[in-house]
């Protein structure tokens, strides 16, 4: 039960109920679509990247609590970050949710760390990383929708 409570913390349920940065982004210059065929989660990510910096980003789609909250928290966290910083955060985030962040001094991911509970639920890691994989596709201008499979 405590593991379940770790997974569905209040902050996650809040972001699922009222996701931040949800909706279309006017003036976006990068887009990507993500799809998790296992559960049918879909999301579209739109960014406005200027001189290597993410000025603004928003997402739309349907998903479970974990994928929606993760997208919401990610869009909060990446505003004002450079592309290089965003890619580095993806690495740290992936380590966080897969439980492989065994470094002496783990990098702080701020509110994103609320998703650390996912590591106890291996089948849900894909839900937590869907938004991030979609982000990478958008930054690298991948035209095909990314799939978690």
């Amino acid at each position: 039960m405590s593991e379940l409570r770790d997974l569905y913390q209040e902050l996650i349920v809040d972001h699922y109920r009222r996701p931040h940065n949800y909706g279309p982004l006017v003036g976006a210059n990068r887009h990507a679509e993500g799809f998790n065929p296992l559960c049918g989660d879909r999301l579209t990510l739109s960014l406005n990247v200027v001189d290597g910096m993410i000025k603004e980003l928003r997402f739309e789609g349907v998903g479970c609590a974990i994928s929606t909250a993760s997208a919401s928290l990610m869009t909060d966290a990446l505003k004002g970050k450079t592309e290089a910083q965003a890619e580095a955060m993806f690495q740290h985030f992936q380590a966080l949710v897969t439980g492989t962040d065994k470094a002496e001094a783990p990098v702080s991911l701020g509110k994103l760390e609320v998703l650390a509970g996912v590591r106890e639920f291996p089948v849900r890691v894909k839900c937590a990383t869907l938004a991030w994989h979609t982000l990478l596709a958008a930054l690298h201008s991948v035209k095909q929708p990314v799939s978690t499979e």
Partner: protein
Amino acid sequence: MNAPMPNLMLDVARLRMDFPILSQMVHGKPLVYLDNAATTQKPRAVIDCMANYYAEYNANIHRGVHILSQQATDAYEGAREKVRRFINAARREEVIFVRGTTEAINLVASSYGQRLWPGNEILITEMEHHSNIVPWQLLCERSGAVLRVTPISDAGELCLDEFERQLGPATRLVAVTHLSNALGSINPLRRLIELAHGVGAVVLVDGAQAVAHLPVDVQALDCDFYAFSGHKLYGPTGIGVLYGKAALLDAMPPWQGGGDMIREVSFAKTTYNDLPFKFEAGTPHIAGGIGLGAAIDYVSKLGQPAIAAHEHDLLSYASEQARAIPGLRLIGTAREKASILSFTVAGIHPHDVGTILDDAGVAVRAGHHCTMPVMTHFGVPATVRASFSFYNTIEEVDVLIHGIRRAQEVFG
């Protein structure tokens, strides 16, 4: 001598002891296995009989002169006879062993499908599993035939009037599920088959979901093909059955070429073996076939009426309890229904319900159940599906219901 009265009461507590997996704990709680529509658990009799084959008489079949090969052949062909009896096929050679329902349908689409031409039509239904949609789409691409789809109502029942209207002289083949894996709806097969035969179409029945829950009598149904998988009938994975009427199978070209399916091979001309071997190229899943035979022995001993009665009680109770949960929407409310409780919970994604139920020890499926068109019909991305077997109990339904309420608390 009079046949004994069938005992309609199953001793479920005792039967559960036949299934080693059911006594285990998951996440510190007793396993409540309600994912039987995905696959059923295996009784000790099935597990032992397969282990026994490998330990005692493993050999290739149909060709050895030695004793082990003879024993293996007898056991494998004995299993074919058990299948024949179980589905009441007229002849043993009408029972083709395949990998599963999917392979059975692909066999018919590939082989029988060679008779289809541009202008022909294949009629399926909106409630089909992807494995009874995609092989026909592929066949349409190859042959130029057109795929037509009979819609379902919002209760999840086939629109019979529409089905009748869509049938015509162009309809060459009808492919329909016996029991919907996403909705639990039972199709009125005898009526559908009669109508299809009326226009000269052959009918393939996808029996993957039905075979563990409903009586199957292919002669009474008068279906032309009936496909099912062993693993949904308490048997092993990797083995399944295509039943086909002998006259149709005889006239069909072979599907895969290889050993066992031939009579004589030369570079000038190869002649094919008789049924059923014409469609069974290569060394088959011998242990699987024998295991399926053991599974059929097991369920036959319980008796279909007793299984159906118990599962009906479980589904009625579960439906009633589920309806009392605010925000719960049942997907699939057909009058004729079996074994499947598919639902959504307002404000909670099915995947999250699935995780919270898993934490309570309850195994369900959360997803589209390989029926994306059904999800589209009901306007949901996915559902939670609890599916019952004769070894489930009312107490287990209570654990499920409690788990759903728990999910509502977590998201409260």
